């Protein structure tokens, strides 16, 4: 599946997932078949993923999110862009994220 990220789009967590920060980690439970299933596939984010996830406030566009991260962190902008694009693509592929307008 090809995912095209739009820099002007706002991406938000899907209503079909529940995510909670528990003991310092983000745990994402997809509500597959309308059930929150701890026996099914669950997801966790690495520290970079957590930082990006916490910035998904439903207001910022992808471009603004990247700019904010470049401002906040010391890493090379290309590195940050690559990390964000990688995570967002994965999350969209797994339907954990959706575009705000299609939310």
């Amino acid at each position, binding site marked *: 599946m090809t995912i095209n990220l739009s820099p002007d789009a706002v991406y938000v967590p899907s209503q079909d997932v529940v995510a909670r920060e528990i003991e310092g*980690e983000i745990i994402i439970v997809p509500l597959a078949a309308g059930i929150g299933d701890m026996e099914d596939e669950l997801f966790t984010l690495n520290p970079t993923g957590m930082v*990006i996830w916490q910035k998904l406030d439903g207001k910022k566009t992808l471009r603004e999110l990247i700019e904010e991260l470049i401002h906040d962190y010391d890493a090379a902008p290309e590195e940050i862009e690559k990390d964000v694009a990688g995570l967002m693509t994965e999350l969209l592929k797994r339907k954990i994220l959706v575009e705000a307008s299609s939310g």
Partner: protein
Amino acid sequence: MKHPAVDPSEPIAQIGELAVSGPALREMIQAVLQTGRPFRFKAAGTSMSPFIKNGDVLTIRPLSSPPPAFGDVVACIHPDTNKTVVHRLIGRQNRRYLVKGDNTRTLGALLPLKDILGCVTKVERNGRHVDWGLGPERRLIALFSRWRLLLLILSFLQRLRRHPVQEQPYD
């Protein structure tokens, strides 16, 4: 909380079975039930044996009206331990609910409705439904539990199963 085989280099990793307990489990249950959807997880412990055994997979539905009834099996926050437990509702006193594990010798615990997270609607053991204890018989079980007769009856039934009464042959 533990989740083996997570690659820390991946921004997102799929985790298999997630062993959560205590506040973490409660938080996940509440988060899912608040969306109005059921929650499915593996039970740990023997306090509801033989109706729910260690490792059974339970489905909990959010509370709806009317409130939980006598005999229902509920996931709740135990007032003494503050842990999430699955116990049977065996009575009401004023506006509080009396819950007790079927396989416990305690008198049970009284708690307010807000500490009841949801009702168990399905029990799966080795991939098969075992809903004995959730049907109409749940009221009788609750009654025996309240009278503190349930453990006696269960142990009697267990003994019967182990040593079935042999029919005497005719001479």
